[in-house]
């Protein structure tokens, strides 16, 4: 039975609870356990590295250190921003001994040990640690009538040499995963274009403008909904869509869901238990009539 240490991140505890819940559901279905590390704290997101260099390393390092103390090596992370911060920290602290010393100093930790802790995004875990057949065998509902646009956002893939996530200009991990679970993936050129991220508080109009571009491209590509892997992307594309609608800047609705929710749907979990109702743009109407009840796709397919 595969087992991973788990770092949910602040959003998954609050606004993106459905991402947390469905992540746990998916891992359970696939037969793996997620153990939340003890007393984790915020990774610092953009605000830390924008304002204080040592803080931006110390905050993630605290969580890496906790993981090590729990005896963990692979740290599963759902939020793309947390994943980026934790992996960049692990990489830079390993490379730069002087930096590690400075960080240990501000953490007041005599022996900062984070060796061997590997931050991994759950997309990478699901696609690398489980075979296509493992995943296909759990699919109970056909999604082929559903056209989805996979949206990676910027922090999953960049900087490529540190995150080593996938091809930086045309990642296919999520595309392939969604195809495996039976959805029809559309070719969508805005996969890694930024949604506006942390400016959602202070410059919401910029975020709305950028989100609009993503939404329009997805619509033009023929998608019924956009599938994301980051709570901030979800919030921006979802919440700001309301602003765009009220300002008459778009004339369509594009639901934004987490890939774990879609996987849960495919795995046969009741669509009312996937947290769709927590999204601002209604999801269920877009799914209506497009989800068939089919036999689980086994090896013969």
């Amino acid at each position, binding site marked *: 039975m595969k087992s991973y240490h788990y770092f949910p991140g*602040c*959003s998954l*505890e*609050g*606004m993106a*609870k459905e991402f947390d819940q469905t992540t746990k559901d998916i891992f359970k279905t696939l037969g793996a356990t997620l153990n939340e590390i003890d*007393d*984790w*704290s*915020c990774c*610092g*997101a*953009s*605000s*830390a*590295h*924008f*304002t*204080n*260099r*040592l*803080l*931006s390393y*110390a*905050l993630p390092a*605290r969580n890496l250190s906790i993981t090590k103390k729990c005896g963990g090596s692979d740290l599963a992370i759902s939020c793309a921003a947390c994943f980026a911060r934790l992996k960049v920290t692990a990489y830079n602290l390993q490379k730069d001994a002087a930096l590690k010393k400075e960080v240990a*100093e*501000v*953490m*007041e930790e005599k022996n900062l040990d984070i060796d061997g802790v590997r931050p991994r995004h759950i997309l990478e875990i699901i696609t690398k640690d489980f075979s296509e057949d493992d995943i296909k065998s759990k699919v109970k509902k056909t999604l082929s009538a559903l056209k989805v646009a996979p949206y990676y956002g*910027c*922090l999953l893939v*960049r*900087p*490529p040499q540190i995150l080593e996530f996938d091809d*930086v200009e045309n990642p296919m991990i999520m595309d392939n995963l969604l195809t495996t679970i039976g959805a029809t993936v559309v070719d969508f050129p805005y996969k890694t*274009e*930024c949604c*506006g*991220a*942390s*400016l959602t*508080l*202070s*410059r*919401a109009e*910029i975020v709305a403008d*950028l989100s609009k571009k993503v939404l329009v491209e997805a619509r033009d590509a023929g998608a019924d909904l956009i599938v994301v892997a980051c709570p901030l992307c979800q919030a921006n594309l979802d*919440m700001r869509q*309301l602003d765009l609608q009220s300002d008459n800047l778009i004339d369509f609705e594009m639901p934004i869901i987490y890939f774990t929710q879609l996987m849960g749907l495919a795995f046969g979990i009741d669509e009312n238990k996937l947290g769709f*109702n*927590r*999204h*601002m743009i209604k999801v269920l109407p877009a799914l209506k009539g497009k989800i068939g009840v089919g036999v689980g796709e086994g090896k013969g397919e």
Partner: protein
Amino acid sequence: MSANNANHANHANQKHNRDQEVFGEAHKCYQCGKCFAGCPMSKVMDISPTHLMRLVHLNKIEEAQKYNTIWVCVACECCMTRCPQQVPLVEIMDLLRQKSFAKIQSGESDGEESIQNVVLSHKLFLGNMKTFGRIFEPLLAAMYNVRSMDLFKDFEKAPSMFFKGKLPLTPHRIKGIKNFKKIFENCEMKAKNENKSENQNENENENENE
């Protein structure tokens, strides 16, 4: 100089060297504009990333910090990924922001009006985190509205969000909050001292030149 001051001076020198090292990378920039072409924020920046690199190359650090560019940048890293000369744009931007923030924290500058909201959002984010160890989103949003004097921002979404369970009523405070706060304090202290030493160095240089 007392031992403490000597240490600070030493540390400041080291930091100064690192600063120079990072800003020095801007000399690689040959102003091709590829970063500008791919930047999602370029339309709302006062000056383009290309122009910003030019200023850093010419060591016009203070002028570079006057524009909203560094605060409107979201660190999506598109620029650095595509830069043909491998200029570490993200590191340079981060350093400009960190130095600018230190000056704002110490009261030396207010920052331009156009960026005050952005800086405020970061301050509040950090403050919120410092209090709880994790972000308590409802309080963060509320405080932002109050402090930015935009009380009704996103207000129409609040009821819907509340009923959808997106706005928890009680925050979670981590157990290790005491040590967590310490980390913050230590980092803030270090940044403050570095800023002070830098100012001292600058004054000394000015006095020498006079």
